């Protein structure tokens, strides 16, 4: 027990794992929904205690460093707010009969299992363990996406499952190749899979195998990041699953896959003769931004619209990390945090909107600010933020990405700005539809909790206006670590 408190990492893993079992066993959805929030809150507290408690040295399985603290804290925070949103969301789903109490039990168990998988992936020091954890997170989200069991939900889940497994299979092949590259230097056995030993000796590995491994890993985990042209699963999975899961998918799971890519990028970047990972990531990122920006125009389904926007933003983030250097990495990191917060806020409001209106079609949800001012303005602010309007944090991070690129590669920066403008136009065009005009569709009362939505928006706004010194220093340290 004392070990649990000595190293918060154990608590971060043990709480979701234990509550997954507990929630799956307990009957009564009201109780389990509250317990789900409580468990997520406790996990968040343990994650925050990482700042205070002295860090344990990296072990054979777990690792805590500056980089993964950013991801873990973000992960548990959004996990907590999404759980609170989910508690108010599911009542309506029960009333309309889209979910039964049995399915809800399953849903809550899966939610915690997914949090466990993601936290484990972020904390693992063993590249094999990391792979297993990401696979666990993928499989649980597949089940969650298909939970409504409608025609479209099953198709989306199947597509996600097939593409996700292909991605995960390629990633495993890449992991095996990394082991093979490390084996002559670090010897046979577990040592050659421990990330901290790998990074210490990566300079001595065979560069050819490392190159090949990185290509497989980028394609494999890149599928899960949702990079074009491997993104096909993402819009369907976002549109057809329960909205809390869309929020978690966009806000967290994509980040976890990105984290895996970054770890291996750091590994290959330390080798002087290996191929530079930057150009590959930059081109995939840029392709995603431009492709997704154009795809935004033809969307008629609101969740699909924001799913494509996630592809665009993951593209920006991967682009920034691909450019590398302290400034671009800083911008990428900041953008990742801002995107997670904003996009999950948007999904929180979209979830309630879709419940009130009974449809996800954009045509059916006009004039929101008149019929439901609090919700409507929340969504409007979220869309403005994600489109990159000042003074929100997303504007600042996008600005940083663009300016840091202009100094080094003006052509790339122009392409990026082009993509951003196209996406901006598409989102504003849609936004005027949501806000203005006569209300369409049903005008029922909103039984919603607005706290998670506005809490996220307030954070994004605050970050856009003033970023506290310690946060800047912390992100700068991580940016240097990323190389």
């Amino acid at each position, binding site marked *: 027990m004392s070990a649990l408190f000595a190293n918060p990492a154990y608590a971060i893993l043990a709480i979701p794992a234990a509550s997954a079992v507990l929630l799956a066993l307990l009957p009564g959805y009201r109780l389990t929904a509250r317990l789900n929030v409580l468990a997520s809150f406790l996990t968040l507290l343990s994650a925050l205690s990482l700042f205070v408690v002295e860090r344990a040295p990296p072990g054979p399985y777990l690792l805590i460093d500056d980089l993964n603290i950013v991801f873990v804290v973000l992960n548990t925070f959004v996990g907590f707010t999404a759980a609170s949103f989910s508690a108010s969301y599911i009542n309506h789903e029960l009333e309309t009969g889209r979910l039964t109490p049995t399915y809800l039990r399953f849903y809550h168990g899966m939610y915690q299992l997914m949090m466990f998988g993601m936290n484990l992936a972020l904390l693992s020091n*063993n590249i*094999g*363990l990391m*792979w*297993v954890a990401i*696979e666990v997170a993928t*499989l649980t989200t*597949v*089940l969650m996406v*298909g939970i409504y*069991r409608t*025609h*479209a939900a*099953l*198709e989306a*889940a*199947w597509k996600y*499952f*097939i593409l996700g*497994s*292909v991605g995960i*299979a*390629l990633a*495993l*092949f890449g*992991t*095996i*190749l990394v*082991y*093979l590259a490390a*084996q*002559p230097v670090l*010897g*046979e*056995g*577990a040592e*050659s*899979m421990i990330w901290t030993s790998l990074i210490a000796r990566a300079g001595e590995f*065979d560069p*050819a*195998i490392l*190159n*090949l491994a990185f290509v497989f890993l980028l394609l494999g985990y890149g599928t899960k990041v949702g990079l074009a042209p491997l993104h096909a699963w993402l819009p*369907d999975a976002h*549109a057809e699953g329960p909205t809390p899961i869309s929020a978690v998918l966009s806000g967290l799971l994509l980040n976890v896959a990105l984290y895996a890519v970054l770890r291996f990028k750091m590994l290959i970047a330390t080798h002087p003769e290996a191929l530079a990972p930057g150009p590959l990531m930059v081109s995939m990122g840029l392709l995603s931004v431009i492709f997704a920006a154009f795809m935004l125009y*033809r*969307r*008629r*389904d609101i969740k*699909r619209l924001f799913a494509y926007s996630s592809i665009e933003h993951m593209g920006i983030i991967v682009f920034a990390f691909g450019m590398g250097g302290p400034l671009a990495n800083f911008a990428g990191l900041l953008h990742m945090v801002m995107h997670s917060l904003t996009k999950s806020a948007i999904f929180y409001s979209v979830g309630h909107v879709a419940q009130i209106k009974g449809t*996800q*079609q954009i045509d059916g949800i006009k004039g929101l600010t008149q019929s439901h001012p609090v919700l409507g303005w929340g969504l409007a602010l979220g869309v403005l933020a994600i489109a990159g309007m000042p003074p929100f944090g997303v504007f600042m991070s996008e600005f940083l990405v663009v300016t840091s690129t202009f100094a080094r590669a003006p052509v790339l920066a122009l392409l990026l700005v082009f993509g951003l403008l196209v996406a901006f136009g598409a989102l504003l065009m849609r936004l005027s539809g949501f806000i203005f005009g006569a209300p369409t569709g049903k005008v029922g009362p909103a039984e919603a909790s607005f706290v998670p939505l506005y809490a996220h928006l307030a954070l994004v706004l605050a970050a856009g206006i003033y970023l506290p010194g310690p946060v800047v220093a912390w992100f700068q340290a991580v940016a240097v670590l990323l190389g």
Partner: protein
Amino acid sequence: MDRMVFDIAHLLAGGLVLVSFMMIYQERLGALIRVFAMHAVVLSLSVSWQAWTQDAPHLYVTAAIALVFKAVVIPGALLRIIRRMGIHREVETVVGSGLTMLAGMGLVAMSIVLMLRLTETVDAFAREDLAFALSVVLLGLLMMVTRRNAVSQVVGFMSMENGLILAATGAKGMPLVVEISVAFSVLIAFIVIGVFLFRIRERFDTIDLGALEEYRGENQ
């Protein structure tokens, strides 16, 4: 003796590639599943051989899992499912089998050229093993792409996993954690798949994915 050890490993891994090719041209679902069982048997033999030559007894566990689950239990269950649905005679391919075979040959050639050229420092054992493993993975991928039926996509996926296990066991001394997890993931994957198949069956009386492709909220 060394030469012999090498040749047998080579033979078994090559056999796996050959069985992968056999799966590509199977026209009927029942036959496809039986060939997959054979695939798993060859994999199990190959893994056992690796276990013996590397003196790594834990690999026998992997071999046993391949033999019991992938060669007996899963094919048995899949055969039952397709009989119950009355679809054990049909397989629709998107692309003709001749064209798929040609594409498959291209993939195998590519993976062999790629692996042998890039991995010159690795010992010959692991090198050739890896080249074959990549071929099996790519052939599995090819099958998933060219088939429309959910069951044959599942079979394609499992043959891909077989390729990964071949690669993992060929890498000398790779920790046990990973092998078990690989086998485990196949199991989990199968449960997931099973659930999906039953759900799909319950709702639509078909497992043809073509029938699932409908209006998705756009292009109208």
